[in-house]
């Protein structure tokens, strides 16, 4: 089937099998390998992307279901290669180690901050509940997000 999507402002048209998951479509067909795969049960959130303004796990969506939608991935964060405040905060607070969960973590935190610019610590944890990190224990990630929350 034909699928047309806009990813980070760029429009792509591809022919895909209906069974192809959005995450495979992004990584294998569009070569946007920033979004990752860490499980096969929808638990880990490494594949989290924002579809038409809504944070989703792209491993539980078929590519054909995204037809006509506008998708934001980690590659789209920041302008002309610069880091966003949130990305800089991750660096400042050592909120990443291996970096594999980081793209999904950033998308979840970005979605949170759009809706709630000044989240409490518990709100931050709740917003990151769908993203597994095995390196950091989350403490520094929560600190990083807190540091960019408007006072």
């Amino acid at each position, binding site marked *: 089937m034909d699928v047309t999507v806009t990813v980070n402002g760029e429009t792509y048209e591809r022919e895909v099998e209906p069974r192809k998951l959005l995450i495979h479509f992004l990584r294998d067909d569009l070569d946007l390998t920033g979004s990752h795969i860490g499980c096969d049960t929808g638990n880990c959130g490494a594949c989290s992307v924002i579809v038409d303004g809504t944070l989703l796990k792209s491993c539980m969506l078929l590519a054909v279901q995204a037809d006509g939608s506008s998708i934001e991935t980690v590659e789209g964060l920041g302008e002309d290669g610069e880091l966003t405040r949130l990305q800089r905060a991750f660096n400042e607070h050592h909120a990443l180690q291996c970096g594999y969960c980081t793209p999904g973590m950033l998308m979840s935190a970005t979605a949170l901050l759009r809706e709630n610019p000044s989240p409490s610590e518990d709100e931050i944890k709740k917003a990151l509940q769908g993203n597994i990190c095995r390196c*950091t224990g989350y403490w520094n990630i929560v600190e990083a997000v807190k540091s960019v929350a408007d006072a």
Partner: protein
Amino acid sequence: MADAGASSIMSETTLAPAPVEVQKGWGGQSVKRKEDKRLLQGEGVFVDDVKRHGMGYLHFVRSPYAHAHITRIDVSAAEAIDGVYGTLTGEEVAALTDPFFQISSAPGANIKDYSLAVGKVRYVGEPVVAVVAETRELARDASELVEVDYEPLDALVDARRAQDLGAPVLHDDAGGNLMWTGLYSWGDLESAFAEADRVVKIPELHFHRFNSTPLECDGALVEFNRGVGQWTIHTNNQFPGFAAIMMGPAMKVGLDKLRFVTQDIGGGFGNKITSHPQLVVCCLLARKLNRPVQWTEWRTDFHLSMSHGNERWFHDTEVAVKEDGTLLGFRTKALDDAGAWLRYEPLGGVIWAQVTPGMYRWRHIELEFTQVATNKAPVSPNRGYSRMQHLWFTERVMDIVAHELGLDPVEVRKRNYIRAEDMPYETPNGCVYDSGDYAAMLDLALELVGYDSMAGRRADAEARGKRLGVGIGSTLDSGTNNFGQSRLINPELQFSGNNEVATVKLDIFGEIVVTLGTTPQGQGHETTAAQVVADILGCSPDDVHVRAGHDSYWNSHAGFSGTYASQFAVTGLSAVKGATEMLAAEIKKLAGAVFGGVPEEALELADGGVRIKDNPDAFLPFMACGAIINANNAGLPEDLDVTLNCRYVYRPPFEVPDVEKKFGNLTLTYAAQIHVAVVEVDLETGSYEIVDYAAVDDCGKRINPQIVEGQVMGATAQALGAAVHETFEYDEDGNLLTPNFYDYHVPHALDMPPLATGAIESPSPFTPLGTKGMGEGGGAGIHAICAAIQDATGQVVTDSHNPFQRVWELMQR
């Protein structure tokens, strides 16, 4: 587990460092990581990101049986599909390769381990056939058409039954399920029991099966260069040096035919050391099909088949103690469940001995170690490898003794801890603890959880129908192996010592380029290496380009290169230091000549160049140095022996251990962590929350405190997950009941308790930078939770895994 309170999530407390020379400069600063930018922008290159024209995707047909004969394999239907490139079966593997070299002495030495099941399957999920096709989906479709007939056999799931008469036997070649056994005995245990006031007996303790489940699973993209007969293996294997010596002989090729390339690795924790069987399959298929072969392991595949941590039982433990809680010695029988294959085992049978007495001064110890095979996934190193199991045992003994004698666990520990003034301390088996002050660490940890206020908090919890418990977990992180310890397992082995390599060069435009032999998985090697280089060359870490990842073509690897066993801060950074000091000397030698015979001691490196100390105007920037040597060298003195491209191999000072006495120094450094956990148990349900937590670390000189703290935090989180929820449980038929993140619950953000971290620095007298390897000490969390639950319930805790049901059952006693 509990939410963090409203209070600050972390409080960093640092005691004054021990009075020793502390290096000035970049080392010791929390320099922000150089590797972060690409990872934050989704520009990291992980193994599944690597693509090649015409590559085929590999999918494994896996065994649904825990134990069965393979009576027939038919791949014709799969190969008939359009877009299927080919298959590989165990029969072909057996014809094309030799079995993997076995580390074990007999009987384990006799098993025949190939990269695909040959004739028999021995655990659910074992690779039986590999199928390669044009797309990932098609490869899996085709694998469903591979017909395999099995003749099921009884499964052996409980290691305690492995040596029973009539137990199912996994490896006929070994004549039974016993893989390796050895008796370790030091001191004079009988005199200890004679001197003891009490002998505390512990019939059985059990350390459960789990692993660190790195978020990225294993994978590879393998290209075969037919012309030169060489494979390029893009993989996230974290110990290519080990993979190479396993793969080369099996594939009957020289190691230079196996080029390992890695950039970013999505976590390892030891779990990515033993992917060599899958890599061999990829190599054979890349050659057979004459096209690049891509393999990505999915989460369920990983849980079913890869790198479980060693499950271990401790039986018939007897502890010789004085009434006042002084421990004299212990005797125990350790039974280790290796799973179906010895992929890194039976090294676990000696690795524990690096920390034989734990943190305590008892001198009389006897441990009979037995490792058996079972119909479960093969075990392999997992963060804290084999020491974690043993340290959990010594910590359980502390708390059970305290319980039996009615003493305070804090007092019992302080009475028995090896003291700061005893350092360096030689253990009963000849290991040398380099430095540390365990009692001071415990005091700090207790202070961080407000130990003095516990009485009031206990009462408050009671009022809410909860029971509060406090538990201590002390742990050692022995780093930088002496591989000579492998001879205690198998005297025939010709391994000893350790080594690591770095190269540092000044390029034509003065660029400082560093290559490492390691395969970092998030430990920030690019950053800490740059800090060390910057201090020696008198420049900024920003001026230092450390190549990302690993490539065996950089010629910056040695036999033990890799990232494992808490050693980079010692082996890796010492190699960097050595190479950089060579380069610094060469720069001075060159400048001396350029300045017309100025002696080296009159020169200094600073501001990105070299200058004459008492004549700052005489300054030669690195760019000029690089240009002169590389591109403008006419007229240089003939005898000027300078390349500005320096390779250094760091070799720790080790002796070969005494195989007869099983005595000698097995590791170079001993970082320590002491954790204190405060839990609240729901008396009705047995569910509990960790309401307070402190982790204190001492890893000697910290090159980058923020990175060190990150390691402490991550290891702690993994330990808490393992203590409460994470477990690889099998049913009686050998089916894994926790094959994915739905039933294998790893901690999520809401599970994390409030954490206070603290650090003290006791620099190692044995390492060039005063550093100690660290990162594996977090197992302390498991010990601390067990102790806290024992304190809360008043019942002796005998298992390392304490899900709510087990705690509820404890309270039913």
